[in-house]
């Protein structure tokens, strides 16, 4: 080999994180960077792993490749100007983040929300939850080596995106909620589309089950893999399908009821095994439950205004104080903590991302598993990297 700049060869030996992990690595092990560019880390998660053969001895997630300072940005713009940021925290379940933020603002200023707006919020959030689960489903199977399901999932997701485009005007990074209601009312076209979508999606789910869930290879890959004990969920603060997959019936929609969720009858699916299959089945069952909520909400949506009179405008100032509001996102509990000093910009805005807590499990969970199982575990946590980094 030719002579090289020593700085260059040092660069090839990895950065600070790699070298730190490598310095503690054993003699016959392999230190491997999984990510930030890797097909199954879904974006830019980076996991440094120490391998012994195909077994993972240690894994260390490295975050921050998609850090955009959303919390700091809140301190620099007014309450209303910050709204578009929320759609960009978690691009798959943007509606829930919208809701968590406007919920906190409403609680801070004591704004009442019209009943129709609450129904619209439930409908769009549940639709968005289904689309989020569909993307997870497709991408997860892509991780497991099945190429076809993601295209079926995207075919169904496309209908949801088309539907949500009617009231929101966007397809991914929604900025639809306003403190005191929603930006636009839903129309007949949307409701009619929703009413045809619900039976359509119900008809698709058995096909999903036949094609994928009952497949013997999939069962072999998911069952008894990545078992998360409930105690570990509690230590790391895991929420959403991860904790429900471990047998705990915890859902913010039931535990800290908000909006009109109390008026609908729906089930909180849980699974007692705590393995990847448990989390998988919980998410698949959640699609059905979201459809049940949608059906009830679409039937009983009351007339009325979609936005309260005198809703906050751009330079609106809330009273000084603090407020915390949590909603159930597709990935778990989304919390927004706002501190107001009475000016038109928040003093502090803390975003609690469920993905961050769920991902924290990974380092402990992946100890001693196969590389292929680590991919299955990572996918079963349903990580959205921009949400983790914020």
């Amino acid at each position, binding site marked *: *080999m030719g002579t090289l700049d020593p700085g260059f060869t040092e660069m*090839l030996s990895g950065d600070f994180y790699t070298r730190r992990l490598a310095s503690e690595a054993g003699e016959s092990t*392999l230190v*491997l960077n999984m990510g930030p560019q*890797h*097909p*199954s880390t879904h974006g830019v998660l980076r996991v440094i792993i120490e*391998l012994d*053969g*195909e077994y993972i001895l240690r894994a260390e997630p490295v975050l921050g490749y998609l850090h955009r300072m959303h919390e700091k940005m809140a301190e620099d713009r007014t309450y209303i100007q910050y709204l578009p940021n929320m759609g960009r925290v978690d691009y798959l379940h943007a509606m829930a983040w919208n809701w968590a933020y406007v919920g906190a603002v409403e609680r801070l200023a004591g704004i009442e929300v019209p009943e129709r707006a609450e129904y619209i919020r439930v409908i769009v959030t549940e639709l968005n939850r289904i689309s989020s689960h569909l993307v997870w489903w497709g991408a997860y*199977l*892509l*991780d*497991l*080596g*099945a*190429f*076809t399901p993601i*295209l*079926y999932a995207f*075919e169904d997701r496309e209908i949801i995106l088309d539907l949500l485009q009617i009231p929101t005007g966007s397809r991914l990074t929604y900025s639809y909620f306003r403190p005191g209601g929603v930006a636009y009312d839903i129309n007949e076209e949307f409701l009619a589309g929703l009413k045809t979508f619900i039976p359509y999606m119900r008809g698709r789910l058995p096909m999903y089950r036949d*094609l*994928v869930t009952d*497949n013997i*290879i*999939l069962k*072999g*890959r998911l069952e008894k893999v990545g078992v998360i004990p409930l105690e570990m969920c509690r230590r790391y603060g895991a929420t959403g399908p991860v904790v429900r997959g471990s047998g705990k019936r915890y859902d913010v929609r039931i535990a800290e009821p908000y909006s009109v969720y109390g008026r609908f009858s729906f089930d909180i699916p849980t699974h007692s095994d705590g393995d990847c299959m448990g989390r998988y089945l919980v998410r698949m069952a959640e699609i059905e439950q979201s459809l049940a909520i949608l059906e009830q909400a679409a039937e009983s949506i009351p007339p009325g205004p979609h936005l309260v009179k005198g809703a906050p405008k751009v330079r609106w100032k809330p009273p000084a104080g603090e407020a915390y509001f949590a909603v159930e996102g597709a990935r778990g509990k989304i919390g927004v903590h706002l501190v107001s000093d009475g000016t038109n910009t928040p003093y502090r805005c803390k975003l609690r991302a469920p993905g961050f807590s769920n991902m924290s499990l990974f380092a402990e969970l992946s100890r001693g598993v*196969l*590389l*292929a*199982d680590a*991919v299955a575990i990572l996918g079963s946590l349903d990580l959205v990297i921009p949400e983790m980094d914020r």
Partner: protein
Amino acid sequence: MRFDWSFWLAALHEIPEEFVRIVAALVALCVFIPVNALVLVYLERKVAGHVQRRPGPFEVGPHGILQTVADALKLVGKQLFRPYGADRVLFWLAAILAFAPVFVLFLPIPFGPVLTTLDVNLGLLLILAFAGVNVLSICLAGWSANNKWSLIGAARGVAQCVAYEIPLLLALLAVAFMKGSLNLSQIVQGQGNWPWQWNVVTQPIAFLVYFVCAVAETNRSPFDLPEAESELTAGFHTEYSGMGFGMFFLSEYANMIVVCAVAVSVFLGGWKGPLLPGLWWFLGKVYGLLLVIMWFRWTYPRVRFDQLLNLNWKWLMPLSIANLVLTAFVMKVV
């Protein structure tokens, strides 16, 4: 000086017929293999498209028929890149080694009643022996690329190919026992025109074991672990670009044809069939099997590595041995 025709003609007659046949076959294969690969890639993308409820390639040429030609040209035009620290000789040798044995693999295959290049008695053995070279190329590719993902992919590839070769061989051996020959042409001759006269009827277990092993040997989904995209980025060929990758790609499709051709010759009556000429029956059956392999790929998730080896050592191996013993017993006693 006058050109002495008679001398050269006499010299031409001295060349053994076998030699002429092989040279002619190699020239034909130089066309057949790449053209078939182009057709297969197109077919695979169309099959994938229709399985996934989309049209597949549609832009280049009518129904996208020239898409693979465009892709091949793109591959040829790309820079051949060798990563820092890669072993220069072994890195390129691996790509060549992946493709070179393919030519030998095609020689003993009976494409039709007279379309057999090498009508040798050890045809089956020749194919099995040279198919093993593929493992070496995977091993070298993974080792020489100086990439950890490649290395893991290569380790998987070697373990997988070596393991699956054994039941594959045992399954073929059962048929060889029955027919008393390793000559593919003779094995085909021993079968009839109709499906119930084929070896698959008398040896269903061997066919099943062979086909599963053949899918694993060619590293096709659900056994595509050496290149498991979502785990190892691209496995053993992560660092190859342009035609370096093209060689592996070409050899994958050529190997698929070979394993299907062997399956057809040994189990499915080879070129035999009513009405149509033998060659069409042969190609039709081969493409039928290839479609099944493609169908697997676009339907199933990937198995895990320990499951893959468990399937081999705990199921296929005992099954094929039992089948072999049973065949031997029946042949000897009955």
